[in-house]
């Protein structure tokens, strides 16, 4: 820290990211509540622990190799250059700046902010596969998306020097594709191999409704996800930086907040657009679902996710309409896919995150057509084709395909799905049975005292 202004900027930035991490923790709390609320009583604890234990596993693997991937892979490698070993070296688990270091106040909180995105990506998949996936299989898939595939997509399309930004003009400021698109694609890849829950479809192929056991828990969970999403949005920004530090084409000396691409934006702009896209999603979802609470709340989330790619630049009315369009398409696509392919997505994660994220990228390509994707010279401008190719890379190439392959391997080894008998008894059967026995013991002992 060279002078007082540098010191203030550094400490502010450190504190800013720390706050985002704490707020983003609520996303995980929300996902846990949501999943448990959506599961049946006999599967509660399994559902909860499946999502909880991704926290330590993704955390340590993100420390081991995930963070290094982000810094080493922006060129592909071998698309716009080789592995960036120099940038990667500072972010290896052996690096001094990844540990307690009084000379570096930013690496730790920046790592943590990205880590919370990793948890979110894995947690999105968790909800889709409840009540029949083995925990061990899910945790391997969680490490795959949380510490490998999503962070590759971030290096490619969510990094100031990512090859997708340079060559395609890819623009995805608040992660429609880099988090939600890939997570939805991953969930679909797993679901195709995993299959539906027993009894989910009738003999003629029509689906049975598995009623969430606790709608209140589901809705409060979604409220908490909304809350955590504020931290997510803030964490996507660089809070304060000078044109000189950016070193691009921006002139003058006015400091600004920027997106991850170092293009200027403001917290004010993204706050308004967040709320407007949430509103668009809620209003359309309420109408098309005829007031169904599950879909209305999910629609609000899908609204934000759809508009997220361009919420750094949209007019609030655009964000509002795009949010509504996103859930409208995602809702009908969900039921079409469910009916046509017998896909049992227990919480609608593929639709709310995957389809909405994909659609959001395509829309951003059109609405922001011609906008510069970067403050640096020589980058492609934002365009519909670039963002659509980007959406395909996120959803299919890095989402669906790796998940399908890993799930096939796990299935082949007999590790993917719980045995049929256990699924029917309930994944918490042993616990519930032992609890019942313990109650009987106490009751008998108390009666003996009468």
């Amino acid at each position, binding site marked *: 820290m060279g002078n007082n202004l540098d010191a203030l900027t550094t400490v502010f930035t450190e504190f800013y990211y720390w706050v985002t991490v704490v707020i983003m923790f609520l996303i995980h709390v929300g996902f846990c509540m949501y999943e448990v609320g959506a599961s049946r009583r006999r599967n509660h604890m399994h559902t909860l622990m499946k999502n909880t234990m991704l926290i330590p596993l993704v955390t340590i693997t993100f420390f081991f190799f995930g963070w290094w991937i982000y810094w080493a892979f922006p060129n592909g490698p071998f698309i716009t250059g080789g592995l960036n070993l120099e940038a990667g070296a500072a972010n290896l688990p052996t690096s001094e700046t990844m*540990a307690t270091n009084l000379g570096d106040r930013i690496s730790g909180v920046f790592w943590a902010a990205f880590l919370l995105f990793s948890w979110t990506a894995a947690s999105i998949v968790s909800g889709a596969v409840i009540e029949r996936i083995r925990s*061990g299989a899910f945790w391997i898939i969680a490490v795959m998306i949380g510490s490998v595939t999503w962070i590759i997509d971030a290096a490619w399309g969510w990094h100031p020097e990512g090859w997708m930004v340079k060559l395609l003009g890819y623009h995805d400021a608040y992660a429609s594709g880099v988090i939600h698109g890939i997570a939805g694609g991953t969930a679909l890849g797993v679901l195709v191999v995993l299959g539906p829950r027993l009894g989910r479809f009738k003999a003629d192929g029509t689906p049975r409704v598995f009623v969430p056991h606790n709608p209140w828990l589901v809705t409060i969970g979604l409220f908490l996800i909304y809350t955590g999403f504020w931290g997510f949005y803030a964490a996507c920004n660089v809070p304060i930086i000078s044109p000189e530090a950016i070193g691009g084409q921006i002139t003058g000396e006015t400091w600004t907040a920027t997106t991850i691409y170092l293009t200027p934006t403001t917290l004010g702009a993204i706050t308004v657009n967040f709320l407007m896209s949430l509103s668009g999603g809620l209003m359309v979802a309420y109408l098309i679902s005829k007031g169904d609470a599950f879909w209305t709340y999910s629609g609000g989330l899908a609204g934000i996710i759809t508009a997220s790619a361009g919420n750094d630049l949209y007019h609030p009315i655009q964000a509002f309409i795009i949010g509504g369009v996103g859930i409208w398409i995602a809702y009908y696509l969900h039921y079409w896919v469910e009916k046509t392919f017998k896909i049992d997505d227990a919480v609608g994660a593929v639709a709310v995150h995957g389809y909405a994220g994909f659609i959001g990228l395509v829309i951003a390509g059109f609405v922001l057509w011609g906008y510069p994707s970067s403050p640096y010279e020589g980058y492609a401008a934002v365009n519909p084709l670039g963002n659509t190719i980007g959406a395909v890379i996120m959803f299919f190439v890095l989402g669906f395909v790796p998940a399908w392959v890993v799930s096939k391997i796990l299935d082949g080894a007999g590790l993917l799905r719980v*045995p049929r*008998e256990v699924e029917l008894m309930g994944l918490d059967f042993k616990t519930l049975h032992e609890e019942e026995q313990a109650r009987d013991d106490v009751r008998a002992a108390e009666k003996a005292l009468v």
Partner: protein
Amino acid sequence: MDTWAVDLANTGAVYPWQGSELIMVIIAVALWILWHICQLREEKAEYAEDIKKYGSKESIKKALDDHPV
């Protein structure tokens, strides 16, 4: 560290065992992989035991009655 009589502008890493980072990482990675192996084995054994103990049609029907949707 044996003193805080330092200029913080010139102070970097302060954690113990500096120079042993690679060994610590190797140990931690090994523990992570071992955890997955143990967990997968435990889960497989647990399900096998559950089926053995409670996997009859009668037990499953009773479980469905005792712990409904």
